[in-house]
């Protein structure tokens, strides 16, 4: 697996840990945890979660990312914590380079 940005990973895990208490999810959340398949989220949850992530990291191309995920075969339409962290780190870097 590609090395994940430790700060972004820590941020995302903290956010999910805190929220998952309201969902009565008691399992361990790891980089491999999938939002839809494991945590039982719906697609709109991911969209709104992205809203709060952008609160922290600024504008990120989530619309394009989720649209791409939505075009995958049904069995692959999911996002893991690691996927999300990679997406944030990759695009945050690109945004900073453009700036």
């Amino acid at each position: 697996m590609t090395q994940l940005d430790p700060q972004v990973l820590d941020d995302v895990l903290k956010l999910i840990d805190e929220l998952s208490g309201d969902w009565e999810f008691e399992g361990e959340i790891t980089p491999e945890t999938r939002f839809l398949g494991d945590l039982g989220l719906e697609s709109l949850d991911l969209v709104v979660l992205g809203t709060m992530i952008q609160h922290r990291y600024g504008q990120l191309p989530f619309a394009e990312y989720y649209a791409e995920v939505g075009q995958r075969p049904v069995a692959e339409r999911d996002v893991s914590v690691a996927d999300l962290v990679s997406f944030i780190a990759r695009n945050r870097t690109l945004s900073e380079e453009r700036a």
Partner: protein
Amino acid sequence: MPKTLLIGLDGATFTVLDPLVERGVMPFLGSLLDRGVRAPLRSVVPPLTPPAWTSLMTGKRPGEHGVFDFFQKESPDSEYFQFASSRDVGTSTIWSLAGEQGKRVISLNFPLMFPPPAVNGYVVPGGWVPWRQLRLGCHPAGLFDRLKALPSFEPRELALDMKLEAKAIEGCDAEEYADWIRLHTRREERWFDIVRHLLDEDDSVDLVGVMFDGPDKLQHLCWRFIDPETRPAAPNEWEREIIALCDDYFRRLDEIIAALVELAGPDPTVVLASDHGFGPSWDVFYVNAWLEQHGYLAWADDGEREALESTQVGFSRMTRHVFELDWRRTVAYAATPSSQGIHIVRQRDGDDAPMSDEAYERLVTEIAAGLLEVRSPRTGRALVNEVHLRATTFAGPYEQLAPDVSLALADGAALSILRSDTLVKTRAEANGNHRPEGIFAAAGPALRSGETLPEISIVDVAPLLLYSLDVPVPLDMSGRLPEAAFRPGELERRPPQYVAGALPEEQPAVAEPEVVFDSDDEALILNRLRALGYVE
């Protein structure tokens, strides 16, 4: 004790409420109408929850506040749409204007309040906030956990459960109707409990706003059981049960409204308003199919076709257009059914230059004229009542994000963006759909009694609320104080105050999320917060 109480009734219409009053189902509403003023309330284009409530909260039209749909175009030339959020509201709201004058507010269940704006008071947002993330929408910090202590606090029922919400639009099995109606009765009770709790804890609140969305949800699904005109003449046992449950919902809503007014203490100004009205709907117009038929749109060859025969207007296809269309051969498309709008592609893939202004004008004029020719096979009459062009309907700082051509469909017809070989299909049974004429009613010490006013605009509600709070009305509001609503001499005795309007807020202040990241890079929080795209 709050001075002003705003009770939002999503989708409420006098054609439903008046008969309920007459039958004794809503006696308190009847008494409120008797001792106050009422008027038809003209919604905006399109008459849809996000732009309409935002217009009520800002006193401005969509081109002036920036919200046109549940989804927002990412940029004027982008084919991507994002989830509309509070950061898309580009101007002051009644909540922020009241707060700036030191007034404290409670705002419950209004859309476009997520992430929660940093108001002087309390926010629990409505709209499309999933229940799993309601914590993030509560303001101030700690409010969610305080509310969790309430026995009736249940995020799953207060906020959005997408699987349940789809039923309101897409329909559900007969055996699910009863649970759906009961859910909304419970939901309104839960919102009331939050108001009661907050007012118990804080006696300094000046403005209480709470929106009940059950009327909209029930009317979408159960219109034929609610509308006296379409109720079955000889209902079977199941139909009798559904009719009784709908009556029970409105009876309980009436009790809740009565209790809210009582909580507000002596002589509050009470304003009831809806974002749009409601009526029956039979036809479904396949607008992208029409655009394809007329050579404005081309589907990608590998697009999915499994919903060819469906008349459902579903959530799940809202942004599939990005991949379903052949962008080299598409100049016009509808991205969502709810926006009732068509976007023009001014520069297609492979084009050397964008479409000229002249060509654009020709195109939108041609499309508008063609749409006005579409007929309903059911009635033989025009299906498109009016066509609105962006430059006139959405003039304002956010005009470029609006649809280029917007449709007002006859008889509440629904719009579909799906592929179809048939341009207009007719449902076997009428369901409910939005109408531009909503409701306004108000009662209070400064207001006339028992009067029916001519139609007012939804943007006129904000000035009235601000006036009732002694808050100056910004002059750049499109809305005007509905002076005819006031007792003679009242406005002379206490003249309204006006102030210069603020420039559009590029980045309205948003409350810090209750769940915060622990990093220290606060500057990034100031970046424009955009909601995201949609994935099935």
